[in-house]
């Protein structure tokens, strides 16, 4: 009988475990280091804000899966076992490394005793939930950085946000969109400092644009894949071991989103179980949030040209991308609620511009925000030109 050992109970590991358990193709063991059961890592910010409890974030594990709480400290691809701290060994016929990534440490100097927090692991949220600084600084302009900023503002702290890039979320937003978002963030009382790398955290915080006094700081400057134990073990080595697999954030070209990791885990699990599955359509669905503005990016292919409209006052924007044949291949919305199912169906159908006259199928209306009919019509006019 097959024995599948999955190391890492994040979205990739959990999805793989669920797929294998559903197929009943063998025993499934899911090993987690941080917490005994899988949990929603994106939901940690709500735990830190006190809006959720531990049980709210915990995710169910299928009854057929054996959940093990422990850290894998060694493994033998030849003898096919993994060893947990404490000496317990779990044999496997197939092993899946889904150990994810960890917060990148701050590269600069940190004064001894200066409180620095991150929001990557289970314990981080609990630690943060007990803090009440009067002034707070955040290093890192990504999604987690935005969440840490919101946390500070929600606690009533005077909050500084230092972002290395000249524009907020420049990998997703145009300069105009980014400016609108930055304006909204400042409207919440945040001191947003763009193009401001931080050199030292302490009293004071030293940045490229001056010094600041804050009681504590949060750092969210990306992640690095967790290491896989073993002298000669690397992801390259795993690639040559037929019964070992690496998925999720730990993989070098692994996805960097919850959804993509879940999909990768499910597909691997079904493949190992010998179950048929349809490959996911090549559409990416990226959603991030900064305070009350969700940025949704749906992409079929890199567009050749785009049209966009931005309302700087309300920080709402719409951008449509088309390929060289005029087919719709991208939608980016900030502050509007998109119906991604309908948009992906339009991508799959290769919808041209003149097939998009009716905007209603593509927005969450009337339950969501006011339908941007005028903005949509103007975009299509621009696209037709």
């Amino acid at each position, binding site marked *: 009988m097959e024995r599948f050992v999955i190391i890492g109970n994040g*979205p990739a590991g959990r999805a793989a475990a669920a797929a294998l358990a559903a197929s009943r193709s063998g025993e499934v063991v899911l090993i987690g280091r941080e917490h005994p059961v899988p949990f*929603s890592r*994106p*939901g940690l*910010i*709500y735990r830190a*804000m*006190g*809006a*959720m*409890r531990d049980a*709210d*974030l915990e*995710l*169910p594990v299928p009854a057929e899966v054996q959940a093990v709480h422990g850290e894998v400290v060694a493994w033998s691809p030849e003898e096919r076992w993994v060893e947990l701290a404490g000496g317990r060994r779990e044999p496997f016929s197939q092993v899946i490394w889904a150990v994810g990534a960890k917060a990148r440490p701050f590269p600069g100097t940190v004064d001894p005793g200066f409180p620095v927090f991150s929001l990557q692991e289970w314990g981080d949220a609990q630690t943060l939930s007990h803090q009440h600084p009067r002034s707070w600084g955040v290093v890192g302009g990504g999604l987690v950085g935005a969440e840490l900023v*919101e946390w500070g*503002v*929600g606690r009533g702290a005077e909050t500084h946000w230092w972002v290395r890039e000249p524009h907020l979320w420049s990998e997703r937003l145009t300069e105009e969109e980014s400016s609108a978002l930055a304006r909204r963030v400042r409207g*919440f009382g945040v001191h947003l400092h763009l193009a401001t790398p931080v050199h030292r955290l302490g009293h004071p915080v030293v940045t490229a644009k001056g010094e600041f006094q804050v009681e504590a700081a949060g750092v969210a400057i990306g992640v690095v894949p967790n290491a896989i134990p073993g002298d000669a073990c690397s992801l390259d080595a795993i690639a040559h071991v037929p019964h070992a697999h690496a998925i999720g954030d730990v993989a070098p070209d692994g996805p960097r989103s*919850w*959804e993509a990791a*879940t*999909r990768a885990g499910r597909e691997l699990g079904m493949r190992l179980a010998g179950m048929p599955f349809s490959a996911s359509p090549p*559409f990416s*669905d990226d*959603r991030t*949030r900064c*305070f*009350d503005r*969700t940025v*949704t990016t749906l992409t079929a292919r890199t567009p050749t040209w785009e049209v966009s409209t931005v309302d700087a006052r309300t920080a709402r924007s719409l951008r449509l991308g088309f390929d060289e044949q005029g087919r719709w291949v991208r939608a980016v919305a900030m502050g509007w*609620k*998109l*119906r*991604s*199912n309908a948009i992906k169906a339009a991508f799959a159908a290769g919808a041209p511009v003149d097939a998009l006259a009716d905007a209603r199928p593509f927005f*969450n209306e*009337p*339950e*969501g*925000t*006011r339908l941007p009919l005028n903005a949509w019509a103007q975009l299509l006019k621009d696209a037709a030109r």
Partner: protein
Amino acid sequence: MIQILAVLLALAACAWNVIRNPGLAGEVAWLAAWSLAAAAFAWKEARRLPGFAHRPQVRRWQKVGRWALAAALTGAYSVLYWWPEGVEPLLPLVDDLSTAVRGAPADRWWLYGVAYTGLVLNSGAIVAVRYRHDAYQRRRTAVVAMAQLVFAFTVPAILQGLDVEHAALHRDWKLFWPLDHSFFEPYRLDALRAGGTIGRFYLISGVLLFAVVAPVATYWWGKRWYCSWICGCGGLAETTGDAFRTLSTSTPKSWKWERWLIYPILGWISVATVAVVGAYIAGVESIGPLSVYAVFTRPYGFVVGALFSGVIGVGFYPLLGNRVWCRFGCPLAAYMGIIQRVKSRFRVSTQAGGCISCGACTLHCEMGIDVRAYAERGEDVRRASCVGCGVCAEVCPRDVIRLESTSEGAVWRLNAKD
């Protein structure tokens, strides 16, 4: 601090009215004082950051506080129903208002109506500010509050004030069978038949509401058309009860309890009504050795009509959430839920690929539906219990959830799964 002062001011105004009975001006003053307190809380809501994470949560209270509140609420309802003498000292709060509006002195039900409607309106204002960024929530809150004010309070009071006879007509018109369990009782039918044009209107519309309007409207919009937009029980739940919504449990066990309670109650009222109507048509008061009133009407009225829907339904807000009655007892919810589940255009759709499993939707579902489980799989939520409040869509940090009423949803769903 301002909120505490406003509440103290309102309590002082109430005490002044009870002790001194200053008249109509005093009664208006205490009502205004409570509105001021509500405005103070609404102002606090307006200063919060948007998003569910910054909202107050009753879950944070110590359990003893929640039990104490539950004891107070169940105690108050028990006094209201079964010890009316205990309510009499409070009647000066509303006596002159009652005389002015309906030409009759206040009784316990008038006091209850004023308190209930006042709670819905004032809490509704707070909730409207809380959800001010969501158009659906703003509209829904406004409509359900106005439905309570107009149909459940003002119209019956006006009818009484115009000296329209028959207490059977001084009722909430939008409350229909089987939620209005006494609609087909002989004294009601007699009053409606003898009530002239208004009586005939109430009688015919009451039958049409449950036989035609309810199924058709539920087919088109799901049972949210009533449960979240019109119902008086829903009105209190969505306004005053909003802070308690995160207390609704979403375990499989609670789901089982729901089904084992709500459908038998629907069966009970259906059998009881058939018996009562049959006896009425036959002109008898008993069926064989069984007294229609003693066997069919009275037990249901006590157990379900008073104890479950009133004492437990509201009294248990601090323990089991704001929809205890709606989830576990309401026969109208059961009736419309069957239609919603089997054949309705309504569904809660989820956008496949966007869910981050944070659980905010499940936490805020007042009907205890594990919305996250559906959203993770990109599946629609087509549950009989869903009242379409839309808060799951409002709290979702990735805009994955949407309430829909479309032709695509209108397929027969007769399988037992989910």
